[in-house]
């Protein structure tokens, strides 16, 4: 094995084993801080030793053992100074969790702790990416455009709160699981969306690292909770969105709307996997399972990705799905997206009337103004369209989207 192979083995092991090592150490030592630091030290030891000693036959086992030794070293060092450590152990129950899925995996405990509702949303995102996904602090700071010191503080404070307030290290009871799981999925969806439409002038418009990480974590949850419909729905939604990513930005760095994308550039295998999941959920719905919002959003994306040409899109099916979604989630953003389907079926004038009714709720949302601008343009109301594009450009945070909106505005007669 040459150096390149060893490096690749370390990278692969890091991706696959980090969360597992942190999770099992947290369970053993009852402390996220110790688990994180010991896992990092064990990976550093691998970088040092594997090139000379070779990659061990069971890399994950080697890392867990090495990290366990590092953790014990640290505890011994600290116990000499401070004997309070034992009191501050995190609580977990040794009983297997409620039968939520086929596998009892410590990573599931870790995910639920990192996404605990007593932590702020930004903190949950940072903690999940650090502890479960193994991204470094500089990587996460870069992804969310915050300073490393700020992010480091956020993670440190979160670990301190988990310890001081006794946020437990366990999978919630069956009764609490749906609500808690939806909090976990919200974190993953937020990570995905930040990658899908990255904000900020200094970043790439698409952050493939973030969408890939979100998909990887959602796959993990799917493997751990295979019977949950919303997990399947969110994974399908991500896959069907990710499948279009190469077609979403032009060579010139401009966002390409769905209608103008080169559908031949879509990733057929991701689409096939997404469609398989949607079919699985449709069968469950036919058997009486009420679909949640991720499943319906996935179904909408399945309709889009089933059309070989924009003209083949089954808009009435999409509108029916949006109607269903509005029933579950009457948010103005859903109503805005519904109006886009209305424009295709009933014409831009009907859609514009629906969009205008959202003005008081979405006045600061760039997509509201972009949608209005497009509808006004289609109605030949150039002057009003230009004003709406101006406002959308002012509010849009994504460089590729700004480029697209600017070109559209400048094409107005």
């Amino acid at each position, binding site marked *: 094995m040459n150096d390149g192979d060893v490096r690749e083995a370390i990278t692969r092991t890091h991706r696959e084993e980090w969360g597992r090592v942190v999770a099992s150490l947290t369970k053993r030592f009852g402390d996220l801080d110790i688990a994180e630091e010991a896992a990092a030290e064990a990976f550093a030891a691998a970088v040092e030793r594997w090139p000379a000693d070779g990659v061990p036959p069971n890399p994950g086992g080697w890392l867990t053992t090495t990290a366990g030794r590092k953790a014990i070293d640290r505890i011994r060092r600290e116990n000499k100074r401070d004997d309070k450590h034992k009191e501050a152990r995190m609580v977990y129950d040794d009983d297997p969790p409620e039968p939520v899925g086929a596998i009892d995996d410590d990573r599931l405990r870790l995910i639920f702790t990192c996404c605990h509702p007593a932590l702020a949303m930004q903190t949950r995102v940072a903690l999940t990416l650090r502890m479960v996904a193994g991204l470094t602090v500089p990587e996460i700071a870069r992804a969310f455009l915050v300073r490393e010191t700020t992010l480091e503080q956020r993670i440190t404070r979160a670990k301190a709160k988990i310890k001081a*307030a*006794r946020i437990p290290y366990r999978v*919630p009871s069956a009764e*609490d699981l749906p609500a808690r799981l939806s909090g976990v999925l919200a974190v993953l969806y937020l990570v995905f969306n930040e990658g899908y439409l990255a904000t900020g002038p200094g970043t790439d418009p698409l952050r493939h690292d973030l969408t890939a990480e979100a998909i990887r974590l959602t796959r993990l949850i799917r493997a751990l909770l295979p019977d949950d419909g919303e997990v399947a729905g969110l994974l399908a939604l991500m896959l069907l969105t990710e499948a279009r990513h190469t077609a979403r930005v032009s060579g010139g760095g401009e966002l390409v709307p769905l209608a103008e994308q080169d559908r031949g550039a879509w990733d057929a295998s991701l689409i096939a996997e997404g469609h398989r999941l949607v079919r699985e959920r449709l069968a469950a719905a036919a058997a009486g399972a009420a679909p949640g919002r991720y499943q319906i959003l996935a179904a909408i994306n399945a309709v889009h990705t089933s059309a070989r040409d924009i003209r083949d899109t089954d808009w009435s099916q999409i509108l029916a799905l949006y109607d269903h979604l509005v029933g579950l989630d009457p948010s103005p953003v859903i109503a805005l997206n519904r109006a886009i389907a209305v424009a295709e079926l009933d014409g831009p004038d009907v859609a514009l009337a629906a969009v205008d009714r959202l003005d008081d709720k979405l006045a600061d949302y760039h997509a509201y103004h972009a949608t209005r601008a497009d509808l006004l343009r289609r109605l030949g109301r150039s002057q009003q369209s230009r004003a709406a594009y101006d406002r959308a450009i002012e509010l849009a945070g994504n460089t590729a989207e700004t480029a697209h909106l600017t070109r559209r505005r400048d094409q107005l007669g």
Partner: protein
Amino acid sequence: MRYLVSVIDDKSNPGSTDRQPAISAFNERLIAEGHWVFAGGLADTDAATVIDNRGEQAVFSDGPFVESKEYLAGVWVWEAPDLDVALKLAAEASKVCDRKIEVRPFL
């Protein structure tokens, strides 16, 4: 693990005043389930006095240490194995008291 559970009222938008029977029933349950350590409602913040004896002599001042729209209306001390248990009870307490609740661990 002990938690200080604060009941927070809002002067400009106070909670309803007919909660006492429901709170008493909730207290009975806290006692029966082994969570109850202490509970007490507080008099109006106007009745508070602040004492500062860090200098030469004690200084007494009339009123609470901080004037704000939101104020502490009562406290509990609960025993609970972890935050999830405390938060679940606190969610019920908020309904029972018709007020916001803060949960804070003791050291």
